[in-house]
């Protein structure tokens, strides 16, 4: 085997189950690659090598004894550094929490450990999942393996870099307005923001509780399905946790997608927040590919993107300011500039604004639900442009330009980003597929079919190949 760090989770799991791949050797390969590349990539806040190797040795012994637990057993997984980890720092990538060591794991981390995952450490984030890319926070920001002069997007920035470069086979991100899907799009991954309430938020540092979602970021849609199987389920510790049956998330993998009806939200990416010509051309080609697979593709119209953005920004900024009010008043100097100022924007919305955003949120969700009765999946771009230079990301971008990902935080619908090619400069491009509530298997099946029909998943960042 040439480089096990570039196996998908599905591929590695088969080899591990058959005892043709050692979890210890896989973990060692990921750690060795991290040591070679992370001085440039800055994907990690903290690599927990000893913990990872101990978990890998345990997994290897369990599997040797006939106790294979499932597809995540022995698989190296990284955690965005807002997931609590018992005995290991969880900092939110902030100087404010530089020495914070939780007593308990987040519920999702417990689930990953129970599935036999090898947790490799804590991955970089925008400060408190909002402030970045920043050079004035706890450690430098993650860089994009496809071109380290460029951002990974955020806020699950280390997760994006780590999966693309093969430092881990999967990672956990969180998504309040696009923080799983943005880095997935800009790093060439598959990343899903699941239906709101499907994955527990307990033990994850909040940014905005009514918009925060946990979710996996992987190389393929199939790998996202495998991770979701271990992660989903009701958690009484999360007041928003849904009580729904948990399906087989891989049920649609490898199945025909013929007859699926896809609604393209053209006004989102053509007029409301126009994508670059390269991105638009790639999306049209993706539409052609999906049509060739037997999908029926139609155009649909939703309310203006700016309406979703107004709701999302008002709720996110208001809830974030409520969380950080005391520390922003007392110790603003401990924040990085981007995090401090983006959160401070929440101080200028009123209680009536917040409630009005709640009214509008319900109205928008109802309108989207009406459209969703006519299609199986909605489609737009994952990002309107490829990754920007890391020092050229505007501080108030999210407030000034309506986000193409925020509508599905506002509505809570599941949304999967899938790689759909590369820019002329070699940076990944991405589409966004949106499903009905709790219909994640449909998205994984469609993403998988597209990935297998196109060559994009065969390419990895040159710097990671050479490592």
């Amino acid at each position, binding site marked *: 085997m040439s480089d096990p760090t570039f196996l998908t989770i599905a591929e590695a799991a088969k080899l591990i189950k058959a005892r043709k791949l050692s979890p210890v050797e896989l973990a060692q390969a990921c750690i060795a690659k991290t040591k070679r590349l992370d001085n440039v990539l800055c994907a990690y806040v903290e690599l927990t090598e000893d913990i990872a190797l101990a978990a890998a040795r345990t997994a290897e012994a369990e599997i040797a004894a006939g106790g294979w637990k499932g597809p995540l057993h022995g698989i190296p997984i990284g955690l965005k550094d807002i997931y609590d980890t018992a005995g290991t720092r969880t900092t939110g990538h902030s100087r404010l929490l530089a020495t914070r060591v939780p007593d308990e794991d987040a519920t999702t981390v417990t689930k990953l450990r129970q599935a036999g995952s090898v947790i490799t450490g804590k991955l970089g984030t925008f400060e408190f999942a909002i402030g970045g890319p920043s050079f004035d926070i706890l450690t430098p920001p993650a860089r994009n393996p496809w071109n380290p002069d460029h951002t990974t997007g955020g806020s699950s920035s280390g997760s994006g870099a780590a999966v693309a470069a093969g430092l881990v086979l999967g990672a956990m991100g969180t998504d309040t307005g696009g923080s799983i899907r943005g880095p997935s799009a800009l790093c060439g991954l598959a990343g899903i923001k699941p239906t709101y309430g499907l994955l527990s938020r307990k033990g994850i540092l909040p940014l905005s509780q*009514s918009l925060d979602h946990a979710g996996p970021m992987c190389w393929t849609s199939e790998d996202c399905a495998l991770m979701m199987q271990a992660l989903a389920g009701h958690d009484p510790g999360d*007041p928003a946790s849904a009580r729904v049956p948990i399906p087989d998330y891989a049920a649609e993998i490898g199945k025909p997608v013929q007859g699926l009806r896809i609604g393209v939200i053209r006004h989102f990416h053509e007029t409301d927040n126009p994508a670059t010509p390269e991105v638009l051309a790639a999306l049209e080609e993706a539409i052609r590919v999906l049509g060739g697979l037997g999908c029926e593709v139609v155009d649909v119209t939703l309310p203006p993107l*700016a*309406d979703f*953005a*107004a*709701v999302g*920004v*008002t709720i996110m900024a208001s809830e974030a300011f409520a969380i950080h*009010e005391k520390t*922003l*008043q007392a110790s*603003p100097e401990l924040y990085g500039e981007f995090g401090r*100022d983006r959160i*401070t*924007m929440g*101080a*200028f*919305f*009123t209680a009536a*604004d917040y*409630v*009005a*955003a*709640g*009214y*509008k*949120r*319900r109205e928008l*969700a109802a309108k989207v639900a009406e459209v969703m009765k006519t299609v199986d999946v909605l489609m737009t771009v994952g990002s309107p442009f490829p990754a920007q230079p890391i020092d050229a990301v505007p501080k*108030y971008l999210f*407030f*000034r330009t309506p986000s193409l990902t925020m509508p599905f935080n506002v509505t809570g619908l599941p949304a999967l980003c899938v790689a759909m090619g590369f820019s002329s400069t070699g940076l990944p491009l991405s589409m966004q597929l949106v499903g009905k509530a709790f219909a994640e298997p449909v998205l994984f099946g469609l993403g998988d079919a597209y990935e297998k029909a196109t060559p994009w998943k065969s390419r990895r960042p040159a710097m990671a190949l050479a490592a």
Partner: protein
Amino acid sequence: MPDPITKEAFAAIVADRGLTLSPERFEEFYALYPLVREIRARLRNPRGYDAEPASIFSPGAF
């Protein structure tokens, strides 16, 4: 759109929120305040008394 907010009125908001801003940050947020008003305006449309916000309290959850 309402008249531009005066710097004195904006300073009162800043003080009420308990924020201490440098002169540069004060000017930055003052310049951004029209954007807050634009966002605010998008949230307002005619609604009846039966309108419900998305975040309704559910006592059964406790």
